């Protein structure tokens, strides 16, 4: 039991990083991770020792996120849960130049399915098969999301003087 606990605990920073970049807001992201950990722990018996615990945890987190977003949309009277990425998840250092800022601005403007795909592949460095499994989509769909996401980022960054949002130039 404590081995499993360690395996899960090791993934917490990664789950937080993914959640943070997916939903934008720090507290909301940590709530999502907490829900994920509870769910995982209550279903620990379903995880087969030796199989990919990272994919299993990310799948749980992703599904909880989808459910929460859907629930939110279907609740009348609530403002849409459109994430407001006013700031990067962490403050860029001095050396992080304009391009990093620009990437973040442009990334924030991507549709969520493309953000999720890019995060799993580029930041978490999952294989295409692993990421497709987490997102519950075929690899072909994943590849097309990655392609559209990267092309859109490229256009937004290449556009003269534009970083995909306001605030970059000021």
């Amino acid at each position, binding site marked *: 039991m404590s081995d499993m606990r360690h395996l899960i605990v090791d993934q917490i920073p990664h789950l937080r990083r993914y959640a943070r970049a997916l939903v934008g807001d720090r507290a909301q992201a*940590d709530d999502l991770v907490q*829900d994920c950990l509870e769910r995982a722990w209550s279903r620990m018996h379903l995880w087969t020792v030796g199989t990919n615990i990272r994919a299993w945890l990310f799948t749980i987190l992703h599904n909880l996120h989808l459910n*929460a977003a859907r629930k939110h949309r279907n609740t009348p009277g609530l403002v849409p849960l459109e994430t407001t990425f006013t700031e990067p998840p962490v403050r860029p250092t001095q050396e992080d130049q304009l391009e990093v800022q620009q990437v973040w601005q442009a990334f924030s403007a991507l549709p969520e399915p493309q953000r999720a795909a890019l995060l799993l592949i580029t930041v978490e460095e999952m294989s295409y098969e692993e990421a497709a499994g987490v997102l519950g989509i075929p690899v072909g769909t994943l590849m097309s999301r990655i392609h559209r996401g990267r092309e859109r980022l490229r256009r937004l960054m290449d556009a003269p003087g534009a970083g995909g949002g306001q605030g970059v130039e000021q």
Partner: protein
Amino acid sequence: MTAAVRKAELHAFVDGQLDPARRREVEAYLAADPEAASRVGAYRRQKQALRALLAPVLDEPLPRGLAPPRQRRPLVHVAWAAAAAVMLIVGGLAGWSLRGMEPPDTAMAERAVADQAAIAHAVFTPQRRHPVEVGAKEEAHLVKWLSNVLGAPLRAPHLGDLGYALVGGRLLSAPSGPAAQFMYENPAKQRLTLYVVRDADRKGETAFRFTAQKGVSVFTWMDGPLGYALAAEIPKPALFEVAQAVHRQLEN
């Protein structure tokens, strides 16, 4: 030269997901195609920027409370544990095949039950003279009465092993109809409540869900038409242990 390089392979190149032979072929292709090379360069810069921005999250100290609940295994009879394990696996397989997805209305209903339970807990547990309508001395009557009103066979779990004795219970009204509250107390006068509502339209079983508000920790779960919420002003891991005990007893 080589087979035409597909779009997807440019991405696989950037992501290091090509086998070495194909990787060399793509390198050769890029050397001869400046447009493709500039595309790959842009993808790489995006990747580096995102990683640079997000890497520090890994080094942040974890917020308090962000950890899987600690689980201490109570000593149970082996056969009983085996039976419980079988039930968990059967129930669990059904759950996992849905990949953790629940209909959103289930999650919302559970949230509502948690809220009602937390309020009922906060209202009645501070009561010293009249915390319950029917006391533990009349447990059989209490359980029968509440079962009749809710229209489902209820049970008051026995939590003596965990130091909690039944104080009694009461009938409450919930938005969906009648609700039952069982109250327990330990020698330190710490009280916990088990709130039960019935929703005839609902079936199936859900995993424990945790919420906390104003110092009241609540674990909720659904089991068939009954929704349960266990509330107490104790830390989550301690309440989790009680929730597991309650769940086990009510299932068996």
